[in-house]
């Protein structure tokens, strides 16, 4: 079970690198959905035999929301808009991957400093959570397209969720549901904003917003 948890955590890190390196908005959305599913499955793997009905329900709800509902909303926002690929982000894709490589040891060092041991066999969970947070932040800073920015926000939320898993194995259901509701509302609003940007400027490029004059 410990190796399995480690594999899941490494897959989460790899999805982060994929997010940094891929230029297609739809690919980013699918990757962040896969990341959400991996993280939802993680508590079931690490807790071993002590699986309760509540944990299964929690994993199911968060998995369904992150794998189906949020991607559906985002994919609907990209439809019609020519959001296929982002050609000129603020930071290029290769540079982004290399920045991600530089962030990995930083996250590892920070995660160790925190002294969060995490559940058994998942001592890398805290560093991986920090890495996911940092990657989400990096995407928000260095991309222009509205949908990709939302993907960065979702990656940050995944990082927060993973951090919660590292701190407390059995998070109260209510807290987690509260966070999920926030994210759901936020993605809903951002999807609407993206549609409005698209209708106004005929593009999803948020850089164009700077041409608005008050």
């Amino acid at each position, binding site marked *: 079970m410990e*190796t399995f948890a480690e594999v899941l955590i490494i897959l989460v890190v*790899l999805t982060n690198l994929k997010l940094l390196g891929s230029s297609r908005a739809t690919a980013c959305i699918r990757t962040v959905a896969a990341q959400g599913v991996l993280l939802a499955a993680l508590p079931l793997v690490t807790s071993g035999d002590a699986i309760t009905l509540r944990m299964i329900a929690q994993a199911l709800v968060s998995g369904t929301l992150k794998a189906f509902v949020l991607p559906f909303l985002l994919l609907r926002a990209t439809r019609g808009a020519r959001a296929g690929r982002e050609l000129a982000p603020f930071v290029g894709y*290769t540079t982004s991957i290399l920045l*991600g490589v530089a962030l990995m040891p930083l996250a590892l060092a920070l995660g160790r400093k925190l002294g969060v041991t995490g559940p058994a066999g998942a001592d*890398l969970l805290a560093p991986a959570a920090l890495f996911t947070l940092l990657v989400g932040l990096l995407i928000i800073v260095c991309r222009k397209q509205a949908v990709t920015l939302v993907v960065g926000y979702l990656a940050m939320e995944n990082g927060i969720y993973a951090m919660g898993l590292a701190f407390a194995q059995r998070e109260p259901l209510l807290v987690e549901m509260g966070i999920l509701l926030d994210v759901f509302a936020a993605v809903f609003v951002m999807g609407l904003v993206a549609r409005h940007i698209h209708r106004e400027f005929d593009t999803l490029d948020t850089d164009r917003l700077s041409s608005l004059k008050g």
Partner: protein
Amino acid sequence: MSAAAILHLLIAFALAPLMTGVANRVKAGFAGRTGAPVLQPYYDLARLLRKGAVYSTTTTWVFRLGPCLGVAGAAAALVVAPWGGGRATLAFDGDLLFFAAALALARFGTILAALDTGSAFEGMGASREATFAALAEPSLLVGLLALARASGELSLSGIYHALTPGHLAAPGGVAVLLVAAAFGIVFLAENARLPVDDPNTHLELTMIHEAMALDHGGPDLALIHYGAALKFWALGTLVAGFVAPVHDGAWTALAAILGGMFLLSVAVGVAESVMARLRLAKVPNFLAAAFALSVLALLLSAHAKGGS
């Protein structure tokens, strides 16, 4: 130095061109053609060796040295290359750096020879080869470093001998899989294989490796082809060593690595049939992914060993 190690070296020298033939045959099968005979690379080498060489008046001795350096470097790398769990003909602490340096020297010779012709296409090929190699080499070295950290050995043979299926289950063992993936990418890039370079292309603008050999002819071209085949085998042993980690006896290891190399050529043929070449601007992205995998593997193995 065992008899099996020397035999592996001899087999590698003899069978290296065959691997290209196998890959080409698989590609032909996918395309619905009969394809050239598996031994075609040998016929090509023999034909080229019978020809005379023509040298442009603008070239110097550097141009003639290039192909020799290419074969010598690849052969030197092959001497320390591990085969499955067996010890290489020469194995010493730090030979992983020697391995990378020998391959770099071979590449340096080819690049210099290409630049020496003064041809625009060859200069372009040389520039691309140097760029992509500079991006691929860190992945190879960091990946080897990760393996060295995980196994506690400093020679290629020792590292690959320490790779056992049980090693995967240990904490940090997943790092080995990441390195295997990174080496796969480096293998494709360094051997000018499909997602990076198309060995079949006849358009100079898209060539990388082939563009550097445009002005070579006769025995020089034969040496370049043979050097490329040796490099394919040397880097191939690094990849096949993950697939076929056999430790009970030198002779089974030899059989395992031969099977592994054969499978690798088939896999290359299949991959080249189903994949398209990456746009040139996308290649650094692909190589950066290999680098990221290697660094992640290094961090994981260092973390598992309790280092900082």
